[in-house]
């Protein structure tokens, strides 16, 4: 390890000095970006797309009592991807559990209500919009030795072939309302969205298919959340 440090400390002055010389040359003809500069800019642009643009907090929804995570919006804000981490309290089991969720939201419409943010009137009355429908598809995974991805080898072939106890596929439908934060009030985010969602998971939907006596209200669950558009 010490050797590494020595090599690095010897190399750093050698590497930095030519860079400084190059910089001075560049300032001389700045008009046209070089191929290298274009490449760098492109790289920045691509990696920039990975910076989380949203902060999301949501309860329930078969992901835990509470899930917190980041999100990315794209495709003219019609699509969103959320990466959430949730916690299931122990309740009457032996311990609490962590979950992770990848969630895809589709928002077909946005309806502006009230006045746009630029107009006169109180700040709180301006810049509202509602999303009358949001559709979500999400995969949740729960951590713990109790759960398996596909049936372990101790079982005969295709014993519990229909399922995984670890991964749950969920679907949800919901609505949301967004408020554009006025420019001079903005601190961490440009807008704030409150949403709710009604969802169910594959196992519950399957049970409804097996027996129609299972009531719809027993297999769906409510979830509410908040989303901050940070970028």
């Amino acid at each position, binding site marked *: 390890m010490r050797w590494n440090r020595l090599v690095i400390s010897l190399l750093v002055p050698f590497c930095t000095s030519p860079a400084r010389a190059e910089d001075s040359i560049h300032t001389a003809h700045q008009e046209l970006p070089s191929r290298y500069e274009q490449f760098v800019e492109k790289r920045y642009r691509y990696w920039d797309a990975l910076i989380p643009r949203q902060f999301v*907090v*949501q*309860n*329930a*929804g*078969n*992901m*835990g*009592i*509470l899930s*917190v995570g980041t999100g990315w919006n794209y495709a003219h804000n019609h699509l969103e991807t959320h990466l959430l981490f949730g916690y*299931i*309290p*122990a*309740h*009457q*089991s*032996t311990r609490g*559990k962590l*979950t992770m969720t990848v969630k895809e939201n589709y928002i077909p419409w946005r309806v502006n209500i009230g006045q746009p943010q630029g107009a006169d009137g109180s700040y709180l009355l301006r810049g509202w919009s509602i999303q009358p429908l949001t559709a979500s598809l999400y995969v*949740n995974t*729960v951590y713990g030795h*109790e*759960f398996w991805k596909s049936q*372990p080898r*101790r*079982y*005969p072939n295709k*014993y*519990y072939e229909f*399922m995984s*106890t670890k991964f*749950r596929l969920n679907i949800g439908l919901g609505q949301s309302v967004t408020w554009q934060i006025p420019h001079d009030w903005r601190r961490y985010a440009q807008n704030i969205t409150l949403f709710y969602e009604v*969802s169910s*998971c594959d*196992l*519950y939907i*399957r*049970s409804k298919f*097996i*027996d*129609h*006596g*299972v009531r719809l209200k*027993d*297999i769906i*669950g*409510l*979830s*509410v*959340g*908040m989303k901050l558009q940070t970028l």
Partner: protein
Amino acid sequence: MKKLAALVIPFVVLAACSDAFDTHPYDVDIHGQTGINARQTAIIESRFASKDTLRIAFISDTHGWYTDTKDEVDALNKRQDIDFVIHCGDLTDTGTTKEFEWSRNIIQNLRMPCVALIGNHDFLGTGNQTYGVMYGQMDFSFIASRIKFVCLNTNSTEYDYMAAVPNFDFMEQEVIADAARFDRTVVVMHAPPYSDQFNNNVCKAFRRYLDLFPGLVCCVYGHNHSDEVKDIYGDGLLFYGIDCAEHRNYRILTITPDGYEMEQAGY
């Protein structure tokens, strides 16, 4: 930090205080009755301490067939002759907490006491923990009319054969425990010997342990989803297989001071 807490706390409170929010299928957040087997066996033991003829209904493998199970409960409730009911396991299909609640809520409508064993499907995810809270110990016994009913967990595959299942120590214990209070025994299990769930390396040892029980009447099991009578070991000891709810039949065991009768009934 304070701001974050102010954001987060309302959601936690919302999720905690309402049934409308689903935390997770395997959250073991049980609403309603728990510790069922202990309560039901206490009722059975006090109600049928000294009854000449005992009539027990055996049901099994209700899984996700809730409508069939409801019909089964209704059919049993219509009869006047049944003393208590034993469910031979597989109360659920995938072991989720909700499924346990759904099946419990149906079975609770029985007019007579009912105990339930754990089936292999009830182990899935956190199902075994939910069973533990909702019903109790996986190996248990009770005495009615001087007959001991020994209910055993035989789902060895769920433990990858690495647990004491079937539990020979428990069986040994049950031979001795309250020996003065019983002189006949009925053994109930979910998976029968030589099935895909039984630890088949100990099938013969299991048979030897069964012989320790005084006045062994017969054995009853579920798991196979078929109504069957088998002399598994070819030595005269009969094993009665109880059908699943989907096939809409159950069995009635009548034990008189002189012997017993096992009949099938449809609904």
